């Protein structure tokens, strides 16, 4: 029997390069409902054609261990983190934060010997931006799959904020080949769909 749900995932466009000049990391755990926001945004970014100096990573829960403590400031100049952030806003509202704005422990790396924030360690050498979305519900420690409607609707706007942050025009990111469209028929500028 064939199993139609086993569709090949999108291909890592540059698997031989670990990090690039601009690194975008979707953080969080999709097993805890809206905590899957970072991964959902990662999947949307995978559908766009981004410049070669941009790498998008599904960081999951491993951002501190696998990325933030491993970035080389000689290679990476800008880090954009996508995550949920509880800042008292309405669910689905999106904000831009800097490491200084984070409450203690937000990205604490349990592997760090003094419990310091790894982002505090790199922020003077790498331009770090956190794009946070106010969650409606985070179900930890209980597992629940799927984003709330409010957070789901925040994804297009988040994509726009990310592209603004890294200085990329949305019109140049549309993947014509994958969408089956001909050059010249897509929007050349403006906001993402539903944005």
């Amino acid at each position, binding site marked *: 029997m064939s*199993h139609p749900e086993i569709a090949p995932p999108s291909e890592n466009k540059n698997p*031989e*390069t*670990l990090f690039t000049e601009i690194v975008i990391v979707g953080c969080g755990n999709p097993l805890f409902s809206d905590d899957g926001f970072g991964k959902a945004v990662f999947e949307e970014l995978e559908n766009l054609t981004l410049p070669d100096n941009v790498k998008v990573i599904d960081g*999951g829960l491993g951002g501190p261990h*696998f990325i933030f*403590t491993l970035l080389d400031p000689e290679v990476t100049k800008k880090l954009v983190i996508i995550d949920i952030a509880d800042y008292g806003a309405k669910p689905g509202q999106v904000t831009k934060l800097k490491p200084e704005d984070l409450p203690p422990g937000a990205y604490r790396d*349990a*592997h760090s*010997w003094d419990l310091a924030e790894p982002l505090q360690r790199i922020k003077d050498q790498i331009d770090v931006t956190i794009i946070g979305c106010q969650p409606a519900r985070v179900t930890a420690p209980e597992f629940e799959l799927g984003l709330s409607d409010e957070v789901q609707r925040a994804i297009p706007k988040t994509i726009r904020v990310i592209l603004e942050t890294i200085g990329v025009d949305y019109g140049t990111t549309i993947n014509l080949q994958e969408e089956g469209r001909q050059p010249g028929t897509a929007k050349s500028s403006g906001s993402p769909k539903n944005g």
Partner: protein
Amino acid sequence: MSKVVEISPTTRHEGHSKLVLKVNDAGIIETGNWCSITPVRGVEKLAVGKTPEQVPKIASRVCGICPIAHTLAATESMEASIKCEIPKDALMLRHILQMANRLHSIALHDILILPDLYLPGTETKINPFTAEEPVRTVAKRIQRLREIGQTIGQIAGGDCIHPRNTRIGGMYRNCSENAKTKMHDLAKEALPLAKAQMDLMIAILRNYQARESVDVGGMKVAMPKTLGYHNQGYLATHPFYGSSSMEEHPTWDIERFKEVRPWDWYMGEMDITLEEPRYPIGGTTKLGTKCNPQMEACTGIPLYDGQPVEVGPRSRLVKYRHYDEKGTVGQNVAREMEYVDSLYEMLDKIDALNTNGKVVADHIPDGDGSLGWASNEAPRGTDVHIARVKDWKVQYFSMLVPTTWNFATCSAALTGAPWQLAEVIMRGYDPCVSCATHMIVLDEDNKVVAQKLIQ
């Protein structure tokens, strides 16, 4: 008279755990309990009714540092249940991914334990993030080894954290000849770095072992010659990769495994009667605080042949290399010895990879409800996943992860050590507590009696 001291939370590892230590007048541990305080999350329940393709993706999200091990173990437990043989080149890619993960993990663990250790010939503890030599050069070498591990893993697995290339029945894509060459070049670059790093770490560990005393938060603590010794057994299923119920001679036996209640193994409610504000970081738990390891522990106690066992690098070396050094230093030395082994194994598998070979099985059965299991020799030990798949739906799934095995064994290894060195002993197990937190408790008849959060 015995006193009770608590270190909570423990540091320099993934997840939340604590140490509750009953000590004598000299501060020597009489009974030690190391337990997870991360709530149970019930991945096993979530898996029921999902497809075999979905469950490994779910399993890979239970913790921050073991997604590769969980992806591979979960995928292969599904394949074991449906009895799906994967092509040789898919297996080569998985082996390469496995060794890349181990390489990164050993290097990361070096960073975690270095602050406990001394620069040989000095009274200076090592800060791996200092800009001063000679540590700066060592730190750069560790970072390069981590980069190489992550890059090779990304090529073989599609991603360096959550590998997107694995699937039921094999791998989605083989890699190109250029990518194979890149992996080979990176592994060759890593070999001398890993050898130098292994030699240095073993020298630093031997220096630590030979000391008469060490400093912990300004306290001079006598160094016992039997630090971290225990008399439990060792469990390993393969020197590098793992085993499964599909093999003719599997190296793990589900009939010899049982998981029991933590309250049979841990101490009950007590008051904290020893407080030490100098203990890093921020002192121990305050006097008069209540603690109750029996009820706070968030894991069951897995037994193999009726006893807790140690899993991890030393167990692999004991079983497959006749290694026999006990204690915390012996455990850390074993991990260092896996540096070079993992790279030679990786190079063998890269050489064996045919980039034109197929990587997906011709036939992927739906499953008839048979029980299948697969073990993965994760960096920190044997990770066993058990599954039952019928008509392409998961009927049963369970994760038996490395640190769960090690909680009770490490607790036994604390006995006889100065309490201030309890975290040093614990770090020897390279704990990953987040993914260790589940609770499936069996009674004498192997029936499930508890699968819940106990708090």
